[in-house]
């Protein structure tokens, strides 16, 4: 469903994403893990059609994103990590606007928008301006907007940021049910427990390259990690220094 071929992104002399190859099949919930600045957000924003790759190919639902961006984007929904939306629109106006961007309208869209708002406890806020929403409420509204036009693929950057435990649980269930119906989700996250519990497969990215990719069992094997959890595998594969002496830091 999502296919990346030799995908690279350079900012001047800095290489944010370095020739990555990836296949995410239909119906899979795929996790993208990596330390800060590893290239996760850049990769996801390229898949969403916001950033232009320096080189490489992206295919979404069989459509080449670079050759037919409109066709590929029609099948895709994007949830960014920072919830910037029009402050002077109400929640329901925003959802209607997003549906309009995908040329969708009518009672079906209205019904879907109402259901999504109700799911995230935003029903009572539907006619209020977004500027009065909290950070978490905005995030919920953006998540709703990604589902309102029924895309085949959803690309999510840090979905759990700002969500309360109830909303986080709803989102997990929603993602699971959504992929069970044959759709695809690609998400980045810092929360390793979330990735471990939700994702069918994960890729670990560091310094713009994929260090490992597979199911939890496959990652354990490749990291020679025995029965270790994802945190240990992650640290081992990304080469992060977790063993810094905390006492020394606090005493410094």
């Amino acid at each position, binding site marked *: 469903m999502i296919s990346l071929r030799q995908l690279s992104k350079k900012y001047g002399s800095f290489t944010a994403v370095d020739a990555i190859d990836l296949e995410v099949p239909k119906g899979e919930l795929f996790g993208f893990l990596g330390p800060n600045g590893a290239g996760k957000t850049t990769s996801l924003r390229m898949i969403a059609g916001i950033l*232009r790759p320096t080189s490489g190919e992206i295919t979404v639902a069989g459509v080449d994103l670079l050759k037919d961006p409109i066709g590929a984007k029609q099948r895709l929904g994007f949830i960014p990590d920072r919830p910037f939306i029009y402050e002077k629109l109400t929640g329901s106006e925003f959802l209607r606007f997003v549906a309009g961007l*995908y040329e969708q309208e009518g009672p079906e869209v209205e019904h879907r928008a109402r259901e999504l708002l109700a799911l995230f406890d935003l029903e009572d806020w539907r006619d209020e301006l977004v500027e009065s929403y909290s950070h978490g409420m905005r995030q919920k509204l953006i998540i709703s907007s990604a589902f309102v036009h029924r895309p085949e693929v959803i690309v999510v950057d840090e979905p759990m940021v700002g969500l309360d435990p109830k909303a986080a649980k709803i989102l997990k269930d929603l993602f699971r049910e959504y992929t069970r119906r044959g759709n695809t989700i690609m998400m980045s996250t810092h929360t390793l427990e979330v990735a471990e519990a939700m994702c069918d497969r994960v890729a670990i990215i560091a310094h713009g390259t994929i260090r490992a990719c597979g199911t939890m069992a496959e990652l354990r094997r490749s990291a020679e990690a025995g029965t270790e959890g994802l945190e240990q595998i992650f640290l081992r594969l990304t080469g992060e220094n977790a063993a810094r002496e905390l006492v020394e830091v606090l005493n410094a």
Partner: protein
Amino acid sequence: MPEAEARRPDPSISLILRPKWLTARARALANERGRGARFFLLSLIGMLFWVFIYTLLYKLLVYFRGVPDLGPFLAGKLLGMILIGFFSILLLSNVITALSSFFLARDLDLLVAAPVDWLKLYGAKLLETGVNSSWMVVLLAVPMFAAFGSAYHGGWLFPLLVIGVFVPFLVVPAVIGSALTLILVNVFPARRTRDILSVIAVLAAGGVVLLFRVVRPERLARPEGFRSLVEFVTVLRTPTSPFLPSEWVQRAVLSWLQERPSLLPVYLLWTTAAAAFVLGALLHWKLYPIGFSKAQESGERWARGGGFGRLGHKLFSPLGILRRELVLKELRLFFRDTTQWSQLILLTVLVIVYVFNIKYLPLKGEGVTFFLVNVIPFLNLVLAGFVLASIAARFIFPSVSLEGRTLWLLRSSPMPVRQLLWAKFWVGTTPLLILALGIVFVTDWLLQVSDFMFAVSVMTIAMMTIALCGMALGFGTLFPQFETENAAQIPTSFGGLMFMIASVGLIAGVVVLEARPVYGYLSARLYGTQTSPAEMLFGFGAAAVLCVVATIVPIQIAKRRLEAVER
């Protein structure tokens, strides 16, 4: 905790302001492409502006010096009028800036949570407010005082005197403006206050402009309009505002230039500034914690215009789903943002003043020919073009920049970029076109022009408006200010300046191309000569082509630019 008590933190004002200074320095030293050229162009334009102001005032003052008896009064009146204008601008500007710097700035959470002494916070924020609100007035004041100093031989101490009186002159409105904002925030929540203030500010600015125009100050230059010379001199001698700092600056400067230096106005200025600061600080101490807490309240909850939404839905349905939703979004965002639509009040004032000027043009009576009556509406197109360009700079130029933070949504959706640009273009152009045609209809009717000139002016203004809107959108996309949240600041950017320069070029081009056929027509009417159809076709045709190109090319460039934006 005696040790901790002994080392109570006490950050200084300079430390509080250090991030601002470092940010400004980093911005100045940023290695941006084309920065040198930009800096050079801005400096050149700034210098030309200074030279223009200086020369104009210097010549006027030298002329005043030559007028026996009345000269000093005229110079004093001129200085007084300028200073009272400065004072009003400073007061308004400080009220608005104080709202951002004291209540809405992003660094406030950090500063208020840190162990910063309240007086230091007040001092730092007052300085920030004062500097942000006053720099433009200071830049304007430099050539003005230079002209006074050189025309009246003020001597080398004159600049020191000017600094000595101008600093307290800037402090007083900064303190009063901040205090007014503080009181308003304590009455209304900060975000509502911003709305209220923007309306008040625009109404006040509009009122000042209207009042100034309606009193027709040009009559002062024509003493024959007064019943007697005594009445005229009395008007000139009467102090307009004896209790305002502007009057004290005027008296201090004039007494120095007339070689009768008086220290009283200087003393009044400094004591008033000091007293204002103390009172302002006390008010801050008493009200700021309550006001700041209120400022954290969220914005307006309920949306206005449910009925409008349904009407708009029906009205724009023929455009298709995507275009309709884009147009409705543009309209909702515009009318719900008070800082945006309130500028319409200023616009109305501008149009009234414009029509007022046309109405009072001395175009009747002896020596006024058919030629003059018909040339004026043609030249009127130049002025109307400038008015429209400034409106387009205000409303259309910032529209792409304002999408900055939400660009992720538009870029990740299957909407072609050109749809967004054309929606913005038509939402901005339609009201402007109605306004432009309205202005030309009314002014042509007031001037009673011939049918030919009426047709020429209507067609020209329509084409010019469309072209100016296309250029505003194009330049706004080429020079975006994606990080700026305040739409009012966007037109004053470098890109805004480039747009205004290009607009002048377009207006000049259209008028030059049409001048020949218009002259041909007027000559034919006056002297019975033949008009040349080829000349007509070429002149008007070339002007039309210029307008079409100026509409389409910038939008095409903008489309490519927006497609390449990575945010």
